[in-house]
Structures are given as C-alpha cells and as structure tokens.
C-alpha cells in the first residue's frame, strides 16, 4: 500500500514557494505593462453633465484617456446579469464606464492608461467631471419607503420580490399555542481579501490572441465574458488566475468593469496593460454583503416545537444586481438550519440603494439566516423557560430522517434536500466541549467577582458543493511526473495539496511527484469557479474519478507489457508491480513511455516506444481502437444536488459592567464537513471563518452617511480584527460522510463564519439579560442598550424574572 495520504494533515505543497517570495500574484506580473487608473464618482447618485480631460492629456506619460462614448459596441453596453431569476423582475447592471448616471460612490467614469500608476493617477486628478446631483437612497428603511428611487424605472426600489411557502403557515400560526415576533437587523461588511482585485492583459498582435490574468475566483467565467464583450472567438482568449491573495466571494463576480476595459485597452494600444486595485478602490467599487432587516414570526407549542415560521426579509442589494439574488435566496432557504419548521413561509424584497453592490461574501446570506433562526430559538427558550439547547434538539432533523427534503428550491434551482448529518451528536459534542451544563457554576463564580459572563450557541447547516460541474485532468509524463489540472481557482485553500493527496491516494504515487494547476483556461477549459465551498467536493471528486481512469489505463498497459492480468497488479509509490511479487514491476514513467507509440526517440527512455524496439504485437494497431495515446485521463463530476455540511458553535463572553467592552473568553466549534481530505487545512478554514465572523459580530460595519459617502473606507477606520481581537478557537470534528460523491466529502470553506454573529448575540444576551437583536454590536451599542434597558425601553429576558422553579431549565445563577 502507498502511504496513506487522504485524510492526513499533510503539509502544504504551496508553502515553500509562498514563504520564500516565490508567489506570483497579479501585481507581481507584467513589469513592462502600462498602468490603468480610474476617475470614480465622488457622488452616490448623480447625472454626469460633462467630462473635461483637457488638462490631463498633456501629462507626460499618459497614453490614453477613455470615457463611455469611446467604448465600441458591446464594450459600452451594460455588464451582464450573471444569474437571472424569474423573480428578479428589475435586474440592473452598471456599465464598464458610467454612461450618463452614477449610482454609487466609486463607480468608474474615466479610465486613464499611462506609463506608470503614479502618472495615471496624476492625470485622473486633472480630469474635471461636472455632475448634477440626484437624491440619494441609503439604508434599507429609505429603500423600502420607496419615496426616492435609485433607478427611475424601478418602482419602490424593488429588484426582486420572492416568496416560498411550505405548508399552511397562516393556519398553523393561528392554531399555535404561542407566538413571538422578532425584528432583527444585520449590517454590512465585506470580504476584504488582503490582495485586492487586479487585471493584466497582453495582446499578441501576430496571432490575434489575448492572454489575460485576473485575480479572480473564476478564470473560465472571465474568459467567456471577456470574449463575448470584445467579440473575440473563445479560442483566441485565455485567462489565468495566478496566485490570488484571498477572495471570500468578491472575486467570483465577473466581469468587473476593469476585466473588460484592461484587455480592451491592451488590444487597442497593442501594448500590455495592468490595473491593480488599491484599498480605497476595493472599499468603494468592489462589493459588500450582509445588510438585511428581518421580521420573524414564529408559532410553537408548549414544548417548544416549531409549528409555523413566517419570515420577511428586506435585503440591501446595493446599486446593481450583477450576481442576481443569490444572497437573499440563500438566506431564505438556509435559515432553516438543522430544524424542522413545521410550516414555513419566507418572503423577501431585494432593494436598491445608492451604495456599492452586494454580492456573496463567505457564508453568502447564511450568517443572516442563521442569525434569524438562532435568535428565534433563544427567544422560544426564554419564553418557555427551557434550556436553549433543549429547544434546539426538540426541533432537530434526526439522522434517521435523512435525506430530508424541505420542499424548497435552493440557490442552484434544485431541491433543498439534506443528504446527511447527525445534529444530536454534534450538539452533545459541543455541550461537552464548552461545558454547557457546568456554566451556571462559572457564572456564579464570575458574578461573585463582580464580572458579567454569558454563554451563547448557534447551529447551522450549509449547502456546499453546488453544481453544475467541475473537471479533472491527469497526465503522467515519461519521467513519472503527474500533472493534474482542474479549472476552478485557488485563493489560499491549499488546493495544490488536497488535490495532490487525492491523486496520490487514488493512483498510488508519491505526493512530491504530483503537480496541480488550477484556474488556467489553457489547461482546463471547462470549469465553473470557486465559491459555495464547492472546490473540494466538485474538483476533488472529478480528480478522483480522473485518477481512477488513469489508474485503469496504466494497469491495462502494464498488464500487457508484464504479461499478467491487471487484477494481479498494484501501484505503489509510482511503480506498477505484481502483488506478492514486487520484483516484477515497471515504473509509471515507463508505462507512460509505452502508452505513446513513437517514431522518434527523444531520449533513452523513449527508445522503448519506437517502432523497431520490438515491444509490440504486430497483429494489433499501435494505439488500440478504444484508446488514446498518452497516459492520461479526464473526468467530470456533476452531482444532482448540493451536499449539506453542518456545525455548531458556542462562546463564552464577558461584558465589562462599566465600559461595556465585550471580550470572547472561549470559542468552541463542532464542525462536520463529511470525510476530511486534510484536517489541518479544514481546521485552518474554520479558524479563518470564525475570525471573519468575529469581525462581523463585533467590529466591522460599512459606515455610510446619508449622502452615500462611505466614511470608513480604509483599514484605519474599518476595524478588521488583528490577532488581539480574535479568540483562540477550540475545534472538534464529526465526520458524517456524504452519500453523494465518491469521497464522502462536503465543503468547508465558508462554515466558520456562518453562526458567529448568532453565537455572540446569544452570549451577550445571556450575560446582559435583555435581548440582542442587531449585529454587529460595539461597546457603544451595548452601553446604549443598557441605558435603554434601564429606562424600560427594552424588556428584560423572562429568565431574569423567573426564579429556579421550572425544569428542565437553563442554569442561570
């Protein structure tokens, strides 16, 4: 047997390169390229009256200045609406350069191309744009009121209105012994990868071919979109995602204006052109997420069983909807988490505002959904005087009930059907890890010391690994080197390592011989992209299938050459050998030589495959009828539905009685993403996700003023957590294999951040004794809530007024 690779915490193959300055990110390429910079709108809503670039053309080093009118044909038409949906009745997208109206601060209006970025920015400063300002819509309340419009032809600012209902919610609600209504509020945050976006394009005039590089989560998507925009045959466009410094969702959107304009300019000028997004540009012209207002009405019985769940969501989609309504669809479906809702209705309105557009950010609508559901669970527990975990477990979908079909349509247009999961086991593990049942003692002790502590919990289910498909291609060279390619891209998930682990295991080769390429349309033209925690499931499965094909072919060829049956062969460390008689063997390199009958010997090894080498059967054609030359194989994986991972988090927080400072004392995670390919990498994903969740729960918000200016568009003012703000994460895993794919895996990329706001709200609520309905929460916010609570404007939890008369009851103090 080859050393076990699958499932092991193998060190990453990409690290030695990345640790020694060998990474090649977008801006590390193209030292000879011209630089592009943009004049962007300083106003949130305005008509463009005039653009005067006369002072800019003379700046030495300026090569070209372009406005919307300069853009020919489809380059000047609106950017594509990537994911149409029947309920998205009023989808709108921007132009690569604004035509006559701008709808958010940061929208590009003029592109300057110059010899370097400094000069391009000098020129931008000399371009005078005259605007006629229009009324501005900022915030969900203003959008919902619909008095002022973002787009004149979109009544009420409603891009989409969607309703899904399972069962008769009205009847069930009317019959429910108890009902509660919660109004909830989640603010905006953003992906904020450390590397912004960037595009670099070269035009080969002789061959009429475009090569472009983009810091993207989908090189195939960019390639297709750019070819369509520029009217080029697909065969004449290639797109490569180099090393990418984080994505978290924002880089799945495409084509960004710059992805169209930079290649267009490179062709026009016949010179390489590059644009690297700076941090301010990333804040005001990339994308944000999360902002929602929610109203949950829930009906339940005396035991806390859900009978009816009626949810309304108002989702802020920003100025445009290039990515459709994926985020609110995910919120409205994934909100259900591990629970059976009895009956369920979810209605949402996706609303325009004069702010940066809203597209998926790690978790993609799930953190908001989880927040709604988990706040509801805590509210039911408080209403009935039950332990919060007890209410949750009474509503769990049980392992024996899997697969569980919610009767809803998921984000991929397919049924929301959970494949597997053991929620009671996850909860037991979590309670043991955090010491749920002993918390009352801790609280008593803390209170005796004059400290305030609280315990919170949050559970989620995450649809991962959505289709439509991914592919894997494997080719073994005569040296024994194994080349693996898949089309989706990498932004730090360790794909070079985990895919190599799969191949090493399936094929029986050494890790060091496996070389993985991702996100290069020259190597794999068919792919979708990296989003929705789908890479391991989709490309991992495709690569495993491809490896099985290559293995079968290698065994066929070797069996022929060694004159044994292929059943008697095994592959160990790159050598095909007879089981029990390992001396009878040949390397995969030699098999590769034999797989490709040659006329010309290019080296010593190749001689064995030439016509006069005497190694063939004269009665057979050199390449058998059903075979192809070369030791290679390809396969695609296309599942009927998503896999559903799940997890449960708990946190203990301390709130300062005087300053209202909030500190996370412990953060515990139970995570089930099916079979793990590399637990070290899964854990890293969980850590990173939780850290982003903590940012979203306690620090990060997009501070727009009423005129639509983003006041905190820098790392100085937007409080992304440093190491000092992120707690140590205690994580444990459950591995409930997915029955849907050959490896039993589920996605893990987004999980960590999904429940964090729910968990922290739950813990602060527990510490303070009054409900927390709005996140993120700063010490100022908490201080203000305390004041209003003291004034009687916010009610106490029932728990506070209820003594220890009920059972089973959550331990208070």
């Amino acid at each position, binding site marked *: 047997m080859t050393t076990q690779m699958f499932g092991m915490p193998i060190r990453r193959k990409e690290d030695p390169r990345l640790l020694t300055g060998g990474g090649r990110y977008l801006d590390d390429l193209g030292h000879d390229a011209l630089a592009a910079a943009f004049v962007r709108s300083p106003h949130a809503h305005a008509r463009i009256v005039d653009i005067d670039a006369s002072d800019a053309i003379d700046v030495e080093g300026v090569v070209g200045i372009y406005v919307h009118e300069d853009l020919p044909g489809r380059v000047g038409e609106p950017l594509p609406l990537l994911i149409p949906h029947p309920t998205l009745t009023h989808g709108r997208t921007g132009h690569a350069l604004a035509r006559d109206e701008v709808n958010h601060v940061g929208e590009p209006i003029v592109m300057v191309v110059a010899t370097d970025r400094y000069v391009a920015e000098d020129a931008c400063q000399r371009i005078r744009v005259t605007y006629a300002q229009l009324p501005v819509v900022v915030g969900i309340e203003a959008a919902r009121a619909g008095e002022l419009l973002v787009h004149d032809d979109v009544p009420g600012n409603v891009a989409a209105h969607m309703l899904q209902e399972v069962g008769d919610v009205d009847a069930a609600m009317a019959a429910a012994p108890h009902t509660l209504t919660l109004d909830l509020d989640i603010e905006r945050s953003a992906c904020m990868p450390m590397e912004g976006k960037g595009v670099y394009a070269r035009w080969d005039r002789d061959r009429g071919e475009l090569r472009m590089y983009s810091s993207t989560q989908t090189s195939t998507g960019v390639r297709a979109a750019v070819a369509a925009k520029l009217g080029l045959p697909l065969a004449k466009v290639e797109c490569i995602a180099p090393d990418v410094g984080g994505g978290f969702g924002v880089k799945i959107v495409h084509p960004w204006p710059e992805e169209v304009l930079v290649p267009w300019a490179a062709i026009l000028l016949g010179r390489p052109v590059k644009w690297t997004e700076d941090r301010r540009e990333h804040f005001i012209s990339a994308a944000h997420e999360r902002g929602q207002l929610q109203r949950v009405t829930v009906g339940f019985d005396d035991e806390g069983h859900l009978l009816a769940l009626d949810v309304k969501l108002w989702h802020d989609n920003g100025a445009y909807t290039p990515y459709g309504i994926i985020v609110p669809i995910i919120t409205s479906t994934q909100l259900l988490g591990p629970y059976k809702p009895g009956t369920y209705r979810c209605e949402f309105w996706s609303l325009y505002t004069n702010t940066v557009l809203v597209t998926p950010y790690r978790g993609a609508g799930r953190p908001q959904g989880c927040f709604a559901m988990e706040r509801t669970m805590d509210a039911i527990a408080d209403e009935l005087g039950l332990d919060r975990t007890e209410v949750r477990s009474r509503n769990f979908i049980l392992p024996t009930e899997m697969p569980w079909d919610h009767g809803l349509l998921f984000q991929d247009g397919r049924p929301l059907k959970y494949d597997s999961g053991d929620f009671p086991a996850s909860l037991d593990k979590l309670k043991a890890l955090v010491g749920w049942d002993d918390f009352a003692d801790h609280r008593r002790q803390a209170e005796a010391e004059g400290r305030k502590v609280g315990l919170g919990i949050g559970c989620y289910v995450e649809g991962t690994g959505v289709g439509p498909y991914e592919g894997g291609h494997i080719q073994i060279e005569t040296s024994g080197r194994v080349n693996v390619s898949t089309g989706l891209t990498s932004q730090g998930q360790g794909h070079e390592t985990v895919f190599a682990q799969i191949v090493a295991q399936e094929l029986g080769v050494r890790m060091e011989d496996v070389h993985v390429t991702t996100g290069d349309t020259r190597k794999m033209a068919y792919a979708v992209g990296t989003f929705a925690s789908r890479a391991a499931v989709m490309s991992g499965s495709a690569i495993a299938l491809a490896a099985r094909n290559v293995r079968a072919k290698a065994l066929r060829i070797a069996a022929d050459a060694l004159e044994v049956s292929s059943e008697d062969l095994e592959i160990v460390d790159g050598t095909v050998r007879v089981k029990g008689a390992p001396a009878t063997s040949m390397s995969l390199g030699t098999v590769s030589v034999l797989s490709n009958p040659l006329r010309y010997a290019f080296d010593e090894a190749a001689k064995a495959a030439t016509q006069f080498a005497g190694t063939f059967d004269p009665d057979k054609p050199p390449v058998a009828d059903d075979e192809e030359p070369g030791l290679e194989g390809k396969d695609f994986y296309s599942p009927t539905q998503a896999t559903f991972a799940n997890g449960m988090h708990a946190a203990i927080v301390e709130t300062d009685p005087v300053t209202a400072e909030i500190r996370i004392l412990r953060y515990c995670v139970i995570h089930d993403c099916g079979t793990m390919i590399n637990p070290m990498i899964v854990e890293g994903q969980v850590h990173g996700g939780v850290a982003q969740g903590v940012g979203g729960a306690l620090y990060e918000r997009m501070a727009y003023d009423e005129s639509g200016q983003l006041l905190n568009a820098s790392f100085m003012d937007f409080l992304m957590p440093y*190491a000092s703000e992120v707690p140590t994460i205690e994580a444990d895993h459950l591995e409930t294999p997915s029955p849907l794919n050959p490896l039993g895996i589920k996605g893990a990329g987004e999980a960590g951040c999904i429940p964090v706001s729910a968990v922290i709200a739950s813990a602060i609520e527990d510490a303070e004794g009054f409900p927390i309905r709005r996140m993120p929460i700063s010490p100022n916010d908490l201080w203000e809530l305390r004041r209003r609570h003291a004034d009687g404007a916010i009610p106490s939890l029932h728990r506070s007024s209820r003594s220890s008369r009920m059972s089973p009851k959550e331990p208070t103090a």
Partner: protein
Amino acid sequence: MTDTTPATETLHDVTVTVNGIRRSASVPGRRLLSDFLRHDLELTGTHVGCEHGVCGACTVLVDGQPMRSCLMFAVTAQDHAITTVEGLGSAPDARVAPTGESMNPVQQAFAECHGLQCGFCTPGFLTTVTAYLEENPSPTSEEAREAISGNLCRCTGYQNIVKSVLRAAEIRVERAAEEQP
C-alpha cells in the same frame, strides 16, 4: 490648470543594499520603497495590502528593524540595508527544504504549522516575526500573539500564526544546537 505635478519629474539615483546585494535605480522622489522594491528591483515578495501603513503586508527589515515599506520613500532608504522575504533564507540558521528553498526558522515554522493560507500577508509576518525573535527568543503564547498584533491577515484567524511564532522559537534553538561542535 491646477499644477499638482511637474511636467517631467526629477529622478534620483537610489542605492540600497537589498538582501546583501547593492542595488541601484533612478526613481522620482515620491517613489514608495514598496514600489521601488517590487517594480524597480522586481522583488515582488514584498506585498502591498493597504498603502497606508495599517496592514503590515509590506513590512521589510531596514537595518534589521521592521519597517512598513509603503510608508517610506525609496530615497530615504539610500545607503541602508534592507532585508525582504526573498532574503530571509540567507540567514545562517536557514536550511534548505527538500523542495529546494532555503528557509529560516520562521519560514520553516509557518510551513509546519499551517501559518498561511493565501500567503499574501505572509511576507510581512515573516519579517516582523524574524526581527521579533531576535529580541525575544522565547516568547509565551500571549507575547507571540501580541507580537503579531500589528499585522492583518484575512485568511488564517491568526491561531496558526501564533503557533508558528512559538514553533519558530523552538526551531531557532534546535538549529543553534546543531551549530555547536
């Protein structure tokens, strides 16, 4: 016309010792050290995450001290010695990995502890931690966390970076012991 820039910029000859090698280039006075290293010298291992001194991705060692190269002009680095991530592997206690790269104890520790994901912030952490361990060779876990609290990472949640700092301290000791006769 608002004359914010001259029609042609005056160029300055800047000579710095980068990773032990004297390098020169003619650059405008406003050229940031980060851009000088990345674009004039084509040493792209130093990354730029914010260009306003907050993220630490651009940290290099100037005469051994960690500095944010986006907050320095290239001309102010004249005659100073700069170490970038490309130069860390030339330290006496660096060792060549099986894959061929020479790595100092901090780089080695990051590889062992999964201290990086996308790798974009990493050069800034590596230079910062390398300088920190020179002064504080055996930090506690809290001190290690404190030491990296001026650098932003959006991928790792910092936990494995803290671990990497502690492991790097161990590797330094191990390698120092190897040096003993």
